[in-house]
């Protein structure tokens, strides 16, 4: 009986302390979120991302606006991972065509072309994983920090950003 009372007291104290700890955590979390530079938004665009793409994690995606900012400042090399026919019909202006299976053979050339710029891989469709595959293939070859613009072609075109036609 006595023991039960002791337990109840502990639980009571625990609830009060827990509430305080939660408040402290919230305050810290919100404050840190306000000052950190590499933060993620409070609400992510998860609905536009597909399971197929995300199941192949370990690569980072890049937002459309961020990708366009890099493009505008000539600070990125875009790699089109789709088939050559789609590329010919239209691609991001200045993008280089390379399919995931060819990544190994062209590593040196890509590195030369990138010249220290950010490499961004893309394909088309929320379910398309070629961009992610390409990024992973390049990472295997030692080119790290390749970012993926998910559903890149459609989103880029719909945003009205520069595109061009032509053979690879």
């Amino acid at each position, binding site marked *: 009986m006595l023991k039960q009372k002791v337990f109840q007291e502990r639980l009571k104290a625990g609830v009060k302390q827990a509430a*305080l700890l939660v408040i402290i955590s919230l305050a810290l979390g919100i404050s840190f979120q306000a000052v950190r530079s590499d933060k993620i938004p409070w*609400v*992510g665009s998860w609905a536009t991302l597909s399971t197929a793409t995300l199941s192949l994690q370990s690569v980072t995606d890049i937002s459309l606006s961020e990708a366009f900012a890099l493009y505008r400042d000539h600070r990125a090399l875009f790699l089109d991972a789709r088939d050559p026919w789609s590329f010919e019909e239209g691609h991001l202006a200045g993008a280089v065509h390379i399919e995931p299976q060819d990544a190994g053979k062209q590593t040196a050339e890509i590195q030369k072309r990138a010249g220290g710029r950010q490499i961004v891989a893309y394909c088309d469709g929320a379910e398309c994983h070629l961009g992610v595959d390409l990024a992973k293939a390049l990472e295997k070859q030692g080119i790290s920090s390749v970012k993926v613009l998910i559903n890149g072609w459609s989103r880029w075109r719909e945003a009205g950003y520069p595109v061009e036609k032509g053979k690879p």
Partner: protein
Amino acid sequence: MKTKIMAFCSSPVLSLAFRVILGSLFLYAGIAKIVDPMGFALSIYNYKLLPDGLINVAAILLPWLEVIVGGSLLLGIGTAGGALIATALFSIFAGALTINLIRGLDIACGCFSTAASGGSISGFYLLRDLSLLLMSLQVLFFDKALFSVTRLRKK
């Protein structure tokens, strides 16, 4: 024999040991997730339990709760509160793991690291979680604040 087992289970030294284990784990897990919020958000997303709008909120705030709980348990400040939150968290994690083990989803645990290579969830992860849950309950009810800041201040 029975009383001996009871005495061992409710021993304050055992509570101290559990506090150190749980506290260190929470600190480690929390910091790893604070460093990589996107990776942790992906882990949460893959569990397919939270609505899209809450995934990032959880990924941003939950790690701080883990760090604070870790600190509370290690230092012995508000230990009952820390242990209570730990119990709640391990119960939630157990639920999330169980649901996805039943669903048969092949996803990374996202427990102590945010890496996708961290290994797929399995019964082992659930067992580990339940062991930690038991430790939290022990601390919640039997901790006598050995080596705690609270006790040092009273001296």
